[in-house]
């Protein structure tokens, strides 16, 4: 006995890019949409305050059971697997990439260009900002080009950030409020931010966007069917032609009953690891290297951005804890013109408490108790502390990415991914130069504003990973086209992070959403237009 679920559009994964595709298609088109999620359903919003409190008090996960036992990989950025995906505990930081990110080969002679430009994506950035609700202020137009204002006013700079902005701008570098998917006013039925300080991992009131709000709305309106605890394990191509005929899945609650998902269009929205992983798992005699993989590039060119941070003592009195997860941002170094050697990075400033935490022993190793600890803390907190951080893009080697690890299998017997990031030779050679350039920026800021650099910390961690199914003009250079459609399979799309050619030098989620919305506009062409479409859902 097998179970079959039929739909027009089958979306694999329920994270933020899946939510973007589902919402746009559901609003604009008439199509039966099924969304399949391997993880559990998410707790309702009313449970969040209690879960948050246990996170604060004990460090417990505020999203219990948000992973699938036995289904992970060494080096993966997060095990989070539940309805809403990693965006259930994201920080809600939503800068755009800069136009240069899409043309690094043409402009600077490094890496690869995307098959689309910033201008191609710009309308979808606007749409993504409206759908998820971004509060922001436009930076200087030459640094922060955009065709429409943000849907909400910026989060106000905290007392600390006002002072830090004055300090930082003495260097001549302009800073502004980091755009964030956190409501500065009530928006789409969600409350305004009240500075609970735990945006990541959990906003107790839903002022920060998370995909569960979209799913609740779409499910409530009967626009999608969300199938949870169901692992899609293989895509199967039709006997004739190269279209995907169905997907094979296993329900974690009924693993002995085979499940087939049949649809006209399939969308893989499963992030940078599990999207290429599914394509590789879908190997068959006709496609021995997996689907969409004639180029051999599925799972390849995976990358992200590394960072250099500095902790700085600044000559102003700050009050840590006013709105700790908000920051200043500058794109001054994302948009260079000609460069003798390639270096691009963002720049952010936060309040911090570095070297200002209460402690048990003083500088002489003397044990302190009672009033001594408080006095010592106060003395060290007289001057403020700031954290500076720059993300810089890492240009990947072709071999950077995932392969199947036959020796390491999940509970259903499928090989798990093995992850190995590798810089391109050119990027590896630039690393010292890049990190030194960033140090000099930090030094410039401290020289101009006063204070002292207490520590500089380069990080080898590649944040906001992308790639694995990168887009390209044709099948020789990538896995999908500029719309996210697989070069080899006309009814198969991959959306979001895996399709990126480069990781940029700013948080990637808004770009992933914009790419998903651009794909959704193409996906929607397969279905009849819905009469009197309600627009992009941004009304509030």
């Amino acid at each position, binding site marked *: 006995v097998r179970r079959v679920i039929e739909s027009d559009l089958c979306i694999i994964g329920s994270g933020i890019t899946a939510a973007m595709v589902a919402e746009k298609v559901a609003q604009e088109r008439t199509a039966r949409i099924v969304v399949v999620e391997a993880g559990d359903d998410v707790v309702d919003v009313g449970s969040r305050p209690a879960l948050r409190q246990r996170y604060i008090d*004990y460090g417990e*996960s505020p999203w219990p059971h948000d*992973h699938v036992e036995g289904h992970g990989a060494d080096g993966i950025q997060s095990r989070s697997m539940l309805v809403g995906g990693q965006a259930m505990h994201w920080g809600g930081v939503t800068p755009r990439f800069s136009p240069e990110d899409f043309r690094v080969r043409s402009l600077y002679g490094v890496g690869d260009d995307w098959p689309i430009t910033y201008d191609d994506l710009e309308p979808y950035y606007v749409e993504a900002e409206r759908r998820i609700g971004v509060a922001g202020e436009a930076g200087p137009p030459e640094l922060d080009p955009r065709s429409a204002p943000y849907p909400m006013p910026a989060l106000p*700079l905290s*007392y600390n950030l006002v002072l830090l902005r004055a300090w930082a701008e003495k260097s001549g570098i302009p800073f502004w409020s980091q755009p964030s998917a956190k409501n500065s006013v009530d928006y789409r039925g969600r409350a305004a931010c009240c500075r609970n300080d735990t945006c990541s991992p959990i906003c107790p009131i839903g002022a920060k966007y998370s995909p569960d709000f979209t799913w609740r709305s779409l499910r409530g309106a009967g626009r999608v069917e969300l199938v949870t605890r169901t692992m899609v394990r293989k895509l199967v191509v039709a006997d004739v032609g190269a279209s995907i005929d169905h997907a094979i899945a296993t329900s974690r609650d009924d693993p002995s009953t085979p499940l087939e998902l049949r649809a006209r269009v399939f969308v893989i929205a499963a992030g940078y690891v599990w999207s290429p992983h599914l394509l590789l798992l879908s190997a068959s005699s006709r496609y021995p290297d997996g689907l969409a993989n004639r180029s051999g590039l599925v799972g390849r060119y995976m990358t992200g951005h590394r960072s250099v941070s500095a902790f700085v003592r600044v000559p102003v009195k700050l*009050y840590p*804890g006013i709105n700790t997860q908000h920051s200043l941002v500058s794109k001054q170094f994302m948009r260079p013109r000609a460069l003798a050697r390639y270096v691009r990075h963002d720049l952010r400033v936060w309040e911090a408490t570095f070297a200002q935490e209460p402690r048990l022993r003083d500088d002489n190793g003397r044990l302190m108790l*009672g009033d001594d600890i408080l006095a010592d803390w106060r003395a060290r907190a007289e001057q403020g502390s700031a954290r500076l951080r720059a993300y810089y893009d890492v240009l990947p080697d072709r071999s950077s990415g995932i392969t199947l690890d036959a020796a390491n299998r999940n509970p259903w017997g499928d090989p798990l991914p093995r992850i190995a990031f590798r810089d391109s030779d050119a990027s590896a050679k630039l690393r010292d130069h890049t990190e030194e350039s960033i140090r000099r920026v930090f030094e410039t800021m401290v020289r101009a504003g006063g204070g002292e650099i207490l520590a500089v910390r380069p990080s080898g961690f590649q944040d906001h990973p992308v790639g694995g199914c990168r887009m390209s003009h044709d099948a020789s250079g990538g896995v999908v086209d500029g719309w996210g459609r697989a070069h080899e399979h006309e009814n198969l799309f991959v959306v979001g992070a895996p399709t990126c050619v480069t990781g940029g030098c700013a948080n990637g989620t808004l770009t992933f959403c914009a790419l998903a919305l651009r794909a959704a506009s193409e996906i929607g062409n397969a279905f009849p237009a819905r009469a009197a479409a309600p627009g992009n859902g941004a009304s509030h």
Partner: protein
Amino acid sequence: MSGISRRGFLRASAALPVIALPACEATSGAPAASASPDPALLRALAEAVLPTELGEAGTAATVAGFARWLAGYQPVAERDHGYGTGEITYTAPDPGPGWAAQLRALDLESRQRFGTGFAELELDRRRELVRASLARERATALPEPADAHTVALGLLAWFYASPAANDLCFRASIGRLTCRPLADSPEQPPPLAPGA
């Protein structure tokens, strides 16, 4: 607090009874010791290690909060695993029984050395005993509360991680981790009210 794996938890749990039970009780056939710190001893400890600026009410509130926190502790709860790691870790064994035993040991030591219980001992003497109990703590930083090896360190770590301690340090009503109007964000936090 640092997370531990399941295997680490089992190792730590296996070791716990040895740490938690003073030898005299483990071998005397006496009734099982309480898993919770004695309130009077905990209060006496708090007076010795917390800042006097807290005052009587602030100290009492801190002790009550710490006791509530300890009572609500769940070992082997899944810890937050956020970004940057695929590792799933779990909270450590319940520190309560060990800490309760330590307090009783402080009390016993006080009676043997000074002829009076820890709670009745003058503050300087209490601090002397606490200092001795902390002598082997070499770290400068305060740990996560549940990772503290001693009850004194656990109490200090819990208090100094609290929004109340942050406010006290800066003598301002910052209210970290609490729900506050966004519109007030650009304002300098007001001074702490007297006695707050």
